C-alpha cells in the first residue's frame, strides 16, 4: 500500500539500528537485549503506557471482563476486525467475543495477565515426532528443541522473577536451577485440591508465576488482592515487560519508546530489503522510522496483519508470504472447565487464585495427540461467577439468585489449556473492504478448531471432574468449548518458525526466510503452543532470538 495518511513529507527521524513494533512480551525483551548490546533501538507501541495507578478495580471493564469495554486496549472506536463464521461475516470490536483480543499497551498481555509462567515440555517442541501426523492438522516439530530454549527459560525466570515450586512436578523437562522465589502460602482451594490429587496418585505442585512473592528486583511482594488477572497490578508485584525489561532498555540510553504509534507497514527498498517502518504517531502524523533491522512483535494476529500489509513488487502477497503461510495456523488454547460445589466454604478472598496444577495429563494420554496441564481457576469476582452457574439452575428469578448466594463461596473450578492441533485453514487475512481508523486494512479471521482438539478437551474435563470429586465436590458441572476459532490472549502460530521456507515464515532465528533484516519475535512463531500459558516461552524465545541477532550483528554499536 502507499500514499495514505496525508499528503505531506514528515520530518525525517534519526536512523536507528533496530525498530521494534510492539512493546509486549517479545518486543520488550528484544528492546532490552538489543539496547544492552549497544544497538540503537526505537520501540513503537500502538497503545498507552499504563501504570499501577490505572488499577481501577472495575469488574465490568477490564481486560478479562469487557462488558463495558476493555481496560487496556485496543479501543472499540478505531480497531475493527472481520470475523468469518461459515458464510457469515461480522465486523467485531475489541471488547466483543470473537475478536481474539490481546491488550494493546506497554507490556502487552503481560501488563494485565494472570502471570502463569510455564516452561513447555520436551515433547511440546516435537509434537509431530511424538504423535505422528494428525489428519487435517499441520502438526509439526519446532526447528528448535527444549534444550535450545532451556538456558533462556532460566534467564527469563531469574532476570524477570518467577515464583512457585515445581519440584514435585515429575513430568517437567530437565532444568538446571530452581525458581528464584517461593510460592505464595496455600489458599483454601489449594488445601482442598492438594490431598485429593495425591490420593489419586497425581503429582500436584505450585504454579510458577511471574509474580513477586517476596521483594525481588526492587519491587514488592504480591498482596493477594481480588483484582488480579485482567487488572493492572496495584503493587507492581506482578511482573511484565512494562516493569522489567522495558525500563531496563530505556535505562541503557540506547532505546526510545514511542506510544500510541500505529505501524502501517514495513518499508522495503528496491532490492527487497527492509529500510524501516511507516507509522502514524499519536498526533495523527505519518512518520517514517528508518532502521537497519525491523522486529515485528505485535502478537500473532497483528504481526501477520502487518506483514500482509507490507506489499512490494517483489512480495505482492505481503512480506514473508511467498508460499502463503503468513497468517496460517492461528491457534491458542482450548479450555475445558469443570466446577465443583462443596459443602464447606472454599472462597478465602485471596488472590491470585490459581495456585495448584498437575502435568499428569500433558502427554501420554491413550489415543490422544497431547493434552494439557490442569489448574484451579483465578479468583472470581461476583459478575464472573454468572458464567459458572450450572445449566440446571433457572437463568433468572429467585432460584438463580439463591444459587449464587449459596454457591459463590463454595465452588472450585479446575481447567486447563489443551494444546491445539494447528489448522492451516485457521487464519488471519486482510479484509478486502474494512479498514481501521488509520485507513489500514484490518485482520480478517476465519477457521475453526480441529475436532481432535475437542476430543482432548473432553478427556481433560473428565480428569478435572475426577479431581474435584475426589476433593469432595457434591456436584460438578462442565463448561465445554465449542468448535469456533481459537485466538485471544494466547494467540500463536501465524508466522511459523521452520527450516523449510516453503512451509514456514521465519527460520529458527526468527528471521523471515524472504528478507534477511526482518524478524518476528512473538508467539506468532510458535509451531505448536504447548499445553500451557505461553508467556514464559515467548519471553525465553525472545531472549534466545535476540542473542542470536546480536551475535550476528556486524553493524555499528553506540555504547554498551
Amino acid at each position: 500500500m502507499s500514499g495514505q495518511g496525508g499528503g505531506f513529507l514528515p520530518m525525517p527521524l534519526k536512523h536507528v539500528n533496530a525498530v521494534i513494533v510492539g512493546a509486549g512480551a517479545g518486543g520488550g525483551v528484544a528492546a532490552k537485549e538489543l539496547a544492552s548490546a549497544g544497538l540503537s533501538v526505537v520501540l513503537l507501541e500502538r497503545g498507552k503506557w499504563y501504570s499501577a495507578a490505572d488499577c481501577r478495580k472495575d469488574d465490568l471493564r477490564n481486560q478479562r471482563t469487557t462488558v463495558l469495554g476493555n481496560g487496556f486496549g485496543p479501543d472499540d472506536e478505531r480497531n475493527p476486525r472481520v470475523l468469518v463464521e461459515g458464510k457469515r461475516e461480522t465486523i467485531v470490536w475489541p471488547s466483543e467475543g470473537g475478536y481474539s483480543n490481546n491488550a494493546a499497551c506497554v507490556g502487552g498481555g503481560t501488563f494485565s495477565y494472570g502471570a502463569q509462567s510455564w516452561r513447555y515440555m520436551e515433547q511440546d517442541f516435537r509434537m509431530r515426532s511424538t504423535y505422528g501426523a494428525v489428519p487435517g492438522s499441520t502438526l509439526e516439530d519446532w526447528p528448535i528443541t527444549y534444550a535450545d530454549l532451556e538456558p533462556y527459560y532460566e534467564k527469563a525466570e531469574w532476570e524477570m522473577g518467577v515464583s512457585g515450586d515445581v519440584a514435585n512436578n515429575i513430568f517437567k523437562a530437565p532444568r538446571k536451577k530452581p525458581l528464584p522465589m517461593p510460592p505464595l502460602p496455600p489458599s483454601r482451594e489449594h488445601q482442598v485440591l492438594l490431598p485429593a490429587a495425591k490420593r489419586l496418585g497425581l503429582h500436584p505442585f505450585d504454579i510458577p508465576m511471574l509474580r513477586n512473592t517476596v521483594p525481588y528486583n526492587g519491587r514488592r511482594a504480591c498482596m493477594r488482592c481480588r483484582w488480579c488477572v485482567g487488572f493492572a497490578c496495584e503493587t507492581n508485584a506482578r511482573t511484565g515487560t512494562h516493569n522489567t525489561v522495558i525500563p531496563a532498555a530505556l535505562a541503557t540510553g540506547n532505546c526510545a519508546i514511542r506510544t500510541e504509534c500505529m505501524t502501517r507497514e514495513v518499508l522495503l527498498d528496491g532490492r527487497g530489503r527492509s529500510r524501516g517502518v511507516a507509522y502514524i504517531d499519536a498526533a495523527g502524523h505519518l512518520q517514517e522510522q528508518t532502521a537497519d533491522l525491523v522486529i515485528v512483535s505485535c502478537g500473532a494476529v497483528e504481526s501477520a496483519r502487518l506483514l500482509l500489509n507490507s506489499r512490494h513488487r517483489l512480495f505482492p502477497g505481503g512480506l514473508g508470504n511467498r508460499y502463503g503461510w503468513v497468517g496460517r495456523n492461528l491457534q491458542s488454547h482450548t479450555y475445558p472447565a469443570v466446577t465443583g460445589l462443596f459443602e464447606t466454604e472454599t472462597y478465602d478472598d485471596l488472590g491470585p487464585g490459581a495456585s495448584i496444577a498437575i502435568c499428569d495429563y500433558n502427554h501420554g494420554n491413550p489415543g490422544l495427540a497431547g493434552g494439557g496441564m490442569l489448574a484451579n481457576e483465578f479468583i472470581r469476582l461476583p459478575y464472573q461467577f454468572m458464567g459458572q452457574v450450572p445449566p440446571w439452575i433457572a437463568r433468572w428469578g429467585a432460584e438463580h439468585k439463591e444459587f449464587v448466594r449459596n454457591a459463590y463461596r463454595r465452588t472450585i473450578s479446575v481447567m486447563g489449556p489443551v494444546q491445539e492441533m494447528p489448522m492451516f485453514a485457521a487464519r488471519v487475512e486482510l479484509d478486502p473492504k474494512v479498514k481501521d481508523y488509520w485507513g489500514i486494512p484490518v485482520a480478517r479471521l476465519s477457521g475453526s478448531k480441529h475436532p481432535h482438539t475437542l476430543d482432548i478437551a473432553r478427556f481433560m474435563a473428565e480428569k478435572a471432574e475426577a479431581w474435584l470429586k475426589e476433593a469432595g465436590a457434591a456436584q460438578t458441572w462442565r463448561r465445554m468449548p465449542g468448535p469456533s476459532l481459537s485466538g485471544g490472549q494466547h494467540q500463536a502460530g501465524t508466522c511459523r518458525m521452520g527450516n523449510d521456507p516453503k512451509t514456514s515464515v521465519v527460520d529458527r532465528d526468527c528471521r523471515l526466510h524472504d528478507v534477511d533484516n526482518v524478524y518476528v519475535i512473538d508467539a506468532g512463531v510458535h509451531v505448536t503452543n504447548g499445553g500451557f500459558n505461553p508467556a514464559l516461552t515467548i519471553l525465553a524465545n525472545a531472549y534466545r532470538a535476540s542473542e542470536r541477532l546480536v551475535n550476528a550483528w556486524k553493524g555499528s554499536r553506540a555504547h554498551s
Partner: protein
Amino acid sequence: MRRRTFVAAGISAVAAGTSISCGGNQAGWRFFTAEEARAVDAICEQIIPAGPHPGAHDARVVNYIDIQLTRHFRKHQETYRRGIAGVEAAGRKKFGRRFVELSPEQQVEILSDAEEKSKAFFELILAHTRQGFYGDPRHGGNHNMVSWKMLGLPSPPIRGRERSVWPGFFCPA
C-alpha cells in the same frame, strides 16, 4: 474530571429514578421515558427479585441500564425501545394491563414468553440486570453494594498504590 461529572450525573439519575411517580421525561432519565423506566425496573426485579436480600430494584439496576444505554450500550437503544414496547403489548393483550400493574405471577408469565419469542431483548436485559446487580457500583447499579454484602465479600480493602513502574523511573501516565 470526566469521572466526577459522570458520578454526579449518576447520582441525579438515581434521585430522579427513585421518585418514579411523575410522568413524561422530566424525571431525568437519560434514555428511558419514565414509563419505560418503571417497566424496566419491574422486569429487572423479576430477573433478580428481592427476598431475604435486596433485589434488582433496591440495587437500582434500571439506573445502571439507563446510564449505559447512553454510553457503552448505545447500540442497544433500539432493542430496548422495541423490547419494552413488546412486553407492554403482551401484557395488555393477555391481561389488559400495563406490565407494572400485573401480579408477580402474570409478570413472570409475560417474561417467560419474552424469553422464547423476544430473544434479543430478553438476553440483553438478563445480562444487563446481572451486571447492574453484581457489578461495580460506580456504573450506577449495585447500590450500597447490596449484592457484594449478600455474598459476604469484604468491602474493597484500602491498599497503597505504586506510582512509578520502576524505582526512580518516571512513567508517563
